[in-house]
């Protein structure tokens, strides 16, 4: 993977970006979550081999956090997009 498409800046050198890890949704009601479920959220990962949804950060550019779908076997970047907050 040499280029990454930032939803804001377009095609840029991958070295401008920082990897943010697999998408791992935060529990909706943190105060009601049991300790074990909280540990699951903090530490346990799918670590998928194949297409994975993940976070990227355009560190040396527009500083945007965005999502990507990437095949972790081939590093083919299938798509990058913004989080839908709705």
């Amino acid at each position: 993977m040499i280029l990454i498409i930032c939803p804001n800046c377009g095609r840029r050198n991958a070295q401008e970006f920082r990897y943010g890890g697999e998408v791992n949704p935060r529990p909706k009601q943190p105060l009601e979550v049991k300790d074990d479920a909280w540990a699951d959220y903090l530490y346990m990962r799918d670590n998928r081999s194949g297409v994975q949804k993940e976070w990227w950060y355009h560190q040396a550019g527009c500083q945007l956090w965005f999502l990507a779908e990437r095949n972790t076997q081939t590093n083919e970047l299938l798509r990058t997009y913004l989080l839908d907050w709705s």
Partner: protein
Amino acid sequence: MSLKLIRQAFTNTPPPRMWHQPEFKERYDVVIIGGGAHGLACAYYLAKEHGITNVAILEKRYIGSGGSGRNTTIIRSNYLTPEGVRFYNESVKLYEQMSAEFDFNVMFSQRGHLTLAHTDSAVRTMRRRAEVNQLQGVDSHLIWPDEIKKLCPPIDVSEHPRYPILAALYHPPGGIIRHDAVVWGYAHHADRMGVHIHQLTELTGIRVENGQVVGVETNRGYIKTGMVLNATAGWCSLIAAMAGVRLPVTTFPLQACVTEPLKPFLDVIIVSGSLHVYVSQSDRGELVMGAAVDPFASYSMNGSLAFTEGISGHILELFPALSHVRILRQWAGLCDMTPDYSPIMGFTPVKGFVVDVGWGTYGFKASPISGKTMAQLIATNSTPDLIHPFRLSRFYENDLVGEKGAASVGH
């Protein structure tokens, strides 16, 4: 050894196979997934110390094709936490007697290991490590630029570089070894004691009934067993998922490279955490160099230009004399990184499914002691004290080990 060689020279028969290609049995007492140094060492100790020989190792490619055949072979015990230091030091002791135990030269060369400090805060960390090491009886102390220069004449200890060298943590017993020989030695002796090594055999499923493992599916058929050890390092999350277990692991590639062979140039092993680089010279004369893991998670073992560019710059900052030396080849292996830079060893919520994973960028040096303690765990169904800190349940008990300071670059 030499007598054996001379005798061999006068006969026409080929030397006996190091290990065999046995048929599948219907049932094994223990099935080990992953034919790296960890899986093989565990089989060796199961047979040697516990008389458990109805054991199979399943390896999807060839033995040593994972991290065990791709690492840069640094062996040391100067870690940061007392539990880490104690554990790795037992491993160093087992490595020291390995050639004699195997009757096979693993070329363990304890040439001394230097971790450079380029900032005041790094000097403080090194002091702390030296104290922790000494309390555990490990030879480790701080040295200053004049002594660094004596141990390593080509290094630039002047004030010219961007990050001048202020001090180093010196660990005389640290060394390098021939990793393939370690893999082959364990395989050979495990085979001779009756362990079955099945190469080109890929695990595709784990059958669990009422929370207990009853068998495994492979590309060559089904095997009954009540005990499965996951020793697949970079692939461990995928194997654990087959048993319904999630692990706190993310797989990152780690790259390394070697230069063309040089005359003897570097006696010691040099590591710089601040510059993200380490280097040693192999018996063939090549400089073996590595860095930190790649910047994003992946199961791909492709190398990158960013790596060779980065490492060349940093190596030249330490050794300006190398500017005309060429890189001969580069490669990558997969590393199973954990949040606290410590392994995960022992039981899981599924009965009969145990793990020896989370070896990240530093696990080769642990192969002997991991094999020994995991064999004990399997044979006695209880966790040896030495590896209790590394249990999976620590993540639910708020009891992480915190080894990052000593393990992130200095494998």
